[in-house]
Structures are given as structure tokens and as C-alpha cells.
């Protein structure tokens, strides 16, 4: 799958990612955590092939990612980016059908069925005929998620796809956040490697198999989620004092505390 | 001059009787229209272009627009048998289409000179099958101009600046080789600018250097510039002898620059205006 060897990215004189070594685990949900500007989105762009490394290598099945045929790559790798709104009145279903672009020139009935199923999985099927410019931010986010699902339909069956999610829970309400991550986990069981950039550390702790902790363009910790998502590592990476508590089902919950806690609230 | 006018009146009357079987004519070019009327074929004219402002009968005929930009179907809708077009008339595609529709299109050249004027009269005569009338008119124009000897009263030639104004603030001045320069020469004046040919916008300094005694304009040009008062405040003109004496002369566009059958009349009028 995707391997990073000392990969760096420099753009406009700024080093955004420096010397990252990473082996993406198939069948796993890998969560990327880090403060704003830590290089999370840059790392996703390296993994997706949108950006080429200016140093080191990014390998796809052992070969440089940049050498891959872009259509062949698009059949196995889908990205849900952070979106800004745009003015073009596409119907939601047409947006999702764009995910079929690497597979067919003109979508046929089978592609409509795939798109429709993807929309059901993303919980947006009810809005299939609506124009995306009339949808809310969260609904649009789910349309893009469905597009990625439609794109990876064949890869799911071949169990060799990669799904890259850059803040997939932004704009989503709590129920849909849960739902998206639960779906992401289920996709890993189908053999997809899923990478998600998240800000919610508790959501990450709850769903991630693997975690990558970034700070200033470097990976400060990577590995099994349990080993990486800890109070001390997170605190150091995010420059914040954290406290932890054990919640229902024995799950650890992190919450921030002021730098000089006089009296922890409710403690 | 009176003779010419009389000839035109008689010709127009004569044409009134014999028009029915004659070909229907569309004229594209003011000088051509004048020729047609002067040759007594005015009643055959069914439409003219925007520049045909003389005689009055022509001005009241249907218009086909600016003669360089006529519409083929527009002209054809007037069911002409003959289109008399000056060489500048166009666009060429439209004239070709008119020809293809079975209408005779005669392109008539004739530069801005006495010979050009006479040639134009003869060409129109040939196209209308009025060769004798054309010969008579041509001979009359030639003799009238040959008899006319402009002689400045005190032997000093007046320097004339022809201003071709296309709106407030612009002074396009006629150099050598222009219709205006030829008219000035025929009328016994001297074109104040001969450093270039054609029309050019002249800087204020060059206008002062040209030192014209008279500024010559077309009537519509003078209107465009905003009248005589506006003329004298234009940069450069202020400091000329013409401004000091407030000598601006305006003549009808077609009469002054058309080089039509009224050429002798135009030359005499301009001469009188230059040497009052």
C-alpha cells in the first residue's frame, strides 16, 4: 500500500512536512492528529499523490506514487477534502456520480445504483435529487463522502483501496460524526486502508486503530492508537495540558485543563 | 452656376415623363447620386445611402444606411435593376451577393480631382445609358473650371487649414493628397499643412507652426466641434492668424468634398469665401 520514506514537502520556502517515515496499514483506520498548521493536510496531499515529495519518497505498492497512472490510481484511492462552497448547481446524485469518473466515461444504470447505495451509506440518499448549492455544509460533506464511496466501489470488493479523509467530521453534528467514523471502521473491515485527519481526540481515541501525531511538520509519534493517543503525547503535540477520566465502558476521555489549575472543575 | 442649376431642373422635369420603363437605381455614394440627378435620371432612383444629401429630392428617398456597410437584402428589398456604387461602398460580400441576385452593380471610381469628377460623370452616364447628357455635363464642368482663374486680389495666397473634426477636442487636419487640399488648390488657396498626406491629428504646436489665415471646415464638422466659439479656444488654433481675424469658413460636406457635378459651383463659392 502507501509507504513514506523520509518524505518532505517544501512549498513557497516553507517546509510543511519534514522527514516523515510511515507505513500505511491496510485494514486499519489511521487517524492523523495535530495542531493547526502541524502538516496534517500536507501529509494527506502527499499520501494522495496531489503533491509530490520534495525530499524522500512516497511509494505505492513499492513503486513511486508519482509514476502511477492517474486513472488507475483514482480507481483505488479516494479523497474527501476540506471543501469550500462553490456556485455550481449540481444535483447531489451527479456529484456522487463523479466518483465513477475513473471507471466509466458515461455512468450507466449500474453506476447509478452504486451511487445510490453510496448515498444511503453516507446517510444522504434522501437528498439525491437536490442541488448541492441548496444543501447545508454537513449535507454537502456527506455528499462528498458518498462520492468517495462510489469511487472505491470496486476497490472495496478487491480489498485494495485507500480512503483519505481530511477532517471528515467538520460541519457534522454529533450523530453524523459517529456515523461517518463507524462507517470508516466498517470500510476497514472490508479491506480498505482509511486515513482520517481529526481534531476531536476523543472521537479518535474511540475509533482509531492506528494514530499519527504531528507537530511542526514532523511525526512525533506513530503506531497503535492505544500507544499514541495518550495524555502526555497528546499534550506535548497539541501544546495543551490534558486531564483524563475513565468514562462508561471503561473508555478513556481526555479533556483540557487550564495551564495552572487551581481547582479542577467538578473534581 | 445658374446654367448648371437650370440643367438640373430641366433634367429632373424631363425624367419625370420617361421614368416608367427605365431601370430602378440605388445609389451608394453622395457624388454618384448628384450625377444621376444632374443627368436627368433622378426619377429612376429608388433609394440612396446616408451621404446622399443633395438634391432635396434625393434626400427624401428611402435610405439604405452607411454606404460602406450596406445590407444585401436591404438593398434587394427595394427591387433595384442597377446599383451604382462608389469604389468605397461595401462590404464587398454584400455587393457580390447583390450581383448574384441578378442586379447589375456598377462600381464607379473617380478620385478627388477635376479629372476624377469628369470621369465619374461619364461613368454614371454610361451606366445609365445617357452618354450624350454625360458628355455635355462633363464638357460644361471642364469649361467652367477652365474659365475660372482664381487670382488673389493682392497676389498673396491665403493659407488654409482644413480641420476635419469628429467631435469636441479632436483636430484632424488634412495634409496633401486629400480632397480638401485639392479644393483649396482649385479655389486659389494654399493648404497650410503639406508635411504629410491624408488626415492626421495635429499637435497644438504644429497648428501654430502652420500659421493658417483661414480655418476651413465642413458644416457638420463645425457643429461637431461645438460652433465657431468652441473652435477658437482649441489648443494651438488660438495663436494663429486665423484666430486673430476670426476667419473660419464652413461649407456643406458633400458640396466641399464630394467632387460631384457641382464642383465648379463649389470652387467658386470657396474662392469667394477665401477672398471676400
Amino acid at each position, binding site marked *: 500500500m502507501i509507504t513514506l520514506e523520509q518524505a518532505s514537502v517544501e512549498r513557497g520556502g516553507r517546509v510543511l512536512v519534514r522527514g516523515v517515515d510511515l507505513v500505511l496499514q491496510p485494514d486499519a483506520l489511521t487517524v492523523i492528529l495535530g495542531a493547526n498548521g502541524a502538516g496534517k493536510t500536507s501529509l494527506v496531499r502527499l499520501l*494522495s499523490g*496531489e503533491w509530490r515529495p520534495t525530499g524522500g519518497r512516497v511509494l505505492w505498492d513499492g513503486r513511486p506514487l508519482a509514476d502511477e497512472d*492517474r*486513472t*488507475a*490510481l*483514482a*480507481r483505488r484511492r*479516494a*479523497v474527501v*477534502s476540506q471543501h469550500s462552497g*462553490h456556485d455550481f448547481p*449540481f*444535483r447531489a*446524485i*451527479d456529484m456522487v456520480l*463523479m*466518483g465513477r*469518473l*475513473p471507471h466509466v*466515461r*458515461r455512468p450507466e*444504470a449500474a453506476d*447509478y*445504483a452504486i451511487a*445510490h*447505495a453510496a448515498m*444511503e451509506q453516507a*446517510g444522504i440518499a434522501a437528498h*439525491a*435529487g437536490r442541488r448541492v448549492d441548496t444543501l447545508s455544509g454537513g449535507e454537502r460533506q456527506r455528499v462528498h463522502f458518498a462520492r468517495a464511496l462510489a*469511487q472505491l*466501489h470496486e476497490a472495496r470488493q478487491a480489498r485494495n483501496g485507500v480512503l483519505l479523509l481530511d477532517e471528515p467530521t467538520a460541519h457534522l453534528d454529533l450523530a453524523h460524526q459517529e456515523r461517518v467514523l463507524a*462507517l470508516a471502521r466498517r470500510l476497514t473491515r*472490508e479491506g480498505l486502508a482509511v486515513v482520517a485527519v481529526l481534531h476531536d481526540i476523543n472521537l479518535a481515541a474511540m475509533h482509531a486503530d492506528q494514530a499519527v501525531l504531528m507537530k511542526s511538520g514532523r511525526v512525533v509519534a506513530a503506531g497503535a492508537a492505544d500507544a499514541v493517543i495518550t495524555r502526555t503525547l497528546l499534550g506535548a503535540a497539541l501544546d495543551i495540558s490534558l486531564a483524563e477520566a475513565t468514562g462508561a465502558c471503561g473508555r478513556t476521555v481526555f479533556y483540557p485543563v487550564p495551564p495552572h489549575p487551581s481547582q479542577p472543575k467538578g473534581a | 452656376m445658374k446654367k448648371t442649376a437650370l440643367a438640373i431642373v430641366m433634367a429632373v422635369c424631363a425624367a419625370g415623363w420617361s421614368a416608367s420603363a427605365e431601370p430602378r437605381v440605388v445609389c451608394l455614394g453622395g457624388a454618384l447620386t448628384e450625377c444621376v440627378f444632374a443627368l436627368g435620371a433622378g426619377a429612376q432612383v429608388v*433609394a440612396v445611402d446616408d451621404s446622399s444629401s443633395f438634391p432635396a429630392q434625393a434626400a427624401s428617398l*428611402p*435610405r439604405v*444606411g*452607411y454606404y460602406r*456597410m450596406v*445590407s*444585401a*437584402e*436591404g438593398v*434587394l*428589398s*427595394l*427591387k433595384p435593376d442597377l446599383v451604382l456604387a462608389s469604389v468605397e461602398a461595401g*462590404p464587398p*460580400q*454584400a455587393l*457580390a*451577393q447583390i450581383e*448574384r*441576385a*441578378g442586379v447589375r452593380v456598377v462600381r464607379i471610381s473617380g478620385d478627388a480631382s477635376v479629372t476624377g469628377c469628369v470621369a465619374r460623370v461619364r461613368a454614371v452616364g454610361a451606366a445609365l445609358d445617357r452618354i450624350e447628357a454625360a458628355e455635355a455635363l462633363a464638357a460644361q464642368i471642364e469649361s467652367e473650371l477652365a474659365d475660372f482663374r482664381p487670382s488673389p486680389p493682392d497676389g498673396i495666397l491665403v493659407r488654409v487649414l482644413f480641420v476635419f473634426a469628429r467631435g469636441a477636442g479632436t483636430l*484632424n487636419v488634412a495634409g496633401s493628397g486629400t480632397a480638401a487640399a485639392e479644393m483649396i488648390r482649385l479655389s486659389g488657396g494654399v493648404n497650410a499643412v503639406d508635411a504629410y498626406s491624408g488626415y*492626421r*491629428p495635429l499637435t497644438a504646436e504644429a497648428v501654430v507652426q502652420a500659421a493658417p489665415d483661414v480655418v476651413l471646415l465642413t458644416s457638420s464638422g463645425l457643429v461637431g466641434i461645438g460652433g465657431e466659439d468652441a473652435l477658437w479656444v482649441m489648443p494651438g488654433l488660438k495663436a494663429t492668424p486665423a484666430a486673430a481675424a476670426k476667419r473660419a469658413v464652413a461649407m456643406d460636406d458633400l458640396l466641399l468634398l464630394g467632387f460631384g457635378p457641382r464642383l465648379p459651383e463649389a470652387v467658386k463659392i470657396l474662392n469667394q469665401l477665401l477672398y471676400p
Partner: protein
Amino acid sequence: MRNADSLTVELPAENVSVDGFRSAPERWLVPVLAVLLGAVLLAGLGIGALPISTGQVLAILAGHVGLELPWSFTEREVAVLLHIRAPRIVIGALAGAALSLGGALMQALFRNPLADPALIGVSSGAAVAAAAVTVVGPTILPLLGMLTTYAKPVAAFLGGWCLTALVMKVAHTTGQIRVDHLLLAGIALNAMGFAGIGVLMLIADDAQLREVSFWNFGSLGRGDWSVALLLLALVLPVLWWSCRRAPWLNALLLGEGEAALLGVPVERVKRAAVLLTCVAVGATISFTGLIGFVGLVAPHIVRLLGGADHRRLIPAAALLGATLLPLADIFARTVAAPVELPIGLVTALMGGPFFLWLLIREQRREAV
């Protein structure tokens, strides 16, 4: 929600059909526009300064293929219909389609529904070249033995091409076309182009000046069947490419990065969009002169009626452009007959207020 937990996709469910999500206007847009186009073309044949009755039109057309109908007509009416009106209507339809296609391509490229083909410099380049032929051509071209009927269209096409190439060159410095640079380069070079026209107008005489300004307002009256065929040969490939690559154009609207991630060869598409617009619009305006607003308004109306999907937008915009321009031309050649109005004047007079109305309407809708 039944599918949400199953891992397989059921093919194809009854409520899922290719057209299942199409609203009525979307489904009927292309057929209705095709019918409208046919109606306007027929009306254009029947309406003109020279009165020709519908019966005569039919009789002349039938006579052309060897049929005899009981309406009499003269040679003049045949010539007007077959050699003036018919090619003119065909040129109008092709020109309208070309301008509208160019607009649709530019709106996709710039990801802006208000983009116009003139943005890439093709119009001002063509206008400068045409003005140059008008003003300095008579003194220079005869020396080269080039002053033929086609000197101006050829020069205009080359002029449009050159300025577009220059705009591309400026926007293409780092191995990829930067659309924001393309826009800015287009604005700068357009300004320079119109400054060039200004210089030429300064040295033009009155007749040339009028000719330049007439050209800048366009006319469909300067062509015959050979022009119509030439335009057909240039416009059809552009239409074919745009229809074929409509899914790529759709993806481009998501953003260049997104499109690339979907396997779209983004740089190739951008370059093709610019060059094909240059071909279609450049060829058109080199024969007709500048015609504004069609390229902007036609795709925009289609988008309002039928959405942004280029699989429908491209053919519908081509049809609407091909309908609007001959319609405007009917006005241009009849309102002041036998004088003809410049068609660019009519499109601007009709298109301008309509476009303002669209803008205001959209602002109101957004405010709600």
C-alpha cells in the same frame, strides 16, 4: 437505511434509474431547445427586408430538390433566400453555438458562472488585427499582394490566436496553467489590445473609423456558404470534444486538485479548453466581428434551467446560442430595414438588461 449495513450493492433497484432524479425542465431542456432552434431557423428564412411568403419559401426550397409547388417566385427571391438569407442564418446559428460553447468552456475553466470567452484575449486580439487591416492594411497589404476579401478574417483569427497564446504563455510559467494568472494576464492583455485599437483609431480617417466601429459591433452579413461550411468544420470538433469531455469539465468544477484526484488530466483539459475556445470564438468573430453577451448569457440561462452538469449543459448551451443569435439577427435586419443594425448592438441591447435582471434575481435569492 437497508443498504447502510450490507456490504454489497444491489443492482439496480427499481427506484434507481438513469433519469430517476431528473426534474422536468432538465429532461426536456435539450429537446425543447432543439425545437426552438428549428422554429427560429425557419422564421429567419421567412423574415427579411424583401418580402417572401411562407409558400414561396417552401416552393423555392422544394424547387431546389426538384419538387414543384403551386407558389410562383422570381429569380431574385431565389437568390435572396438561398444565397443571402440561408447562409446567413446558418452562420448565425454556428456563430451562436461557437460563442456559447466558448462561454461554457471558460466558465468551467475559471469555475465562475460569469466568465466570458473574451477573458482569454481572443476577442481583443481579433479586434486589434481587424482594425489594423482596416486602417493600415490599404497602405501595407497591397505591397504583399494580400488585400483580398479574406485578409481581414485571416488577420483577425491570427490576432485572436496570438493574443490568446500570449495570455497562455504568461499564465503557464511554472509548468501548469494557473487560472488566476490566466485571468489577470487576460485582463492586462485585453487592456493593451483595446489601447492598440485606440491608437489605430487615432490615425484612422473617418471612413476607416466607422468601419472599425462597425466591426466592433459585429454583423452576420459578411459571409456566404463557404464561410458557413468553414465555421461548421471548426465548430463541430469543438462541440464534439466538449460533449465527450463533459464529465471532465464537471470534475473541474470541484476544483483542479479534486479533478486530478479523480484521474482527470487537468492540465490537458485546461489547455484544450483555452485552445478550443480560441478556435471556435476566434473563427466566429473573425467573420462576424465582435458579438458580445451570447457567450456569457446562453450558458448561464442553461445552467439556471438545467443545472451545471456539462453532459446536458454543453449541448443545451450550443443549441441556445444557435437559437439566440439568429433571433437577434432577425431583429437586426428587419427593425430598421432596409438599413441593418449591427448584431453586436442588438445582443448587447437585449443581453445586457437581461443579464442585469439575472444578477439582481440571484442576489435577491441569496438574500432570502
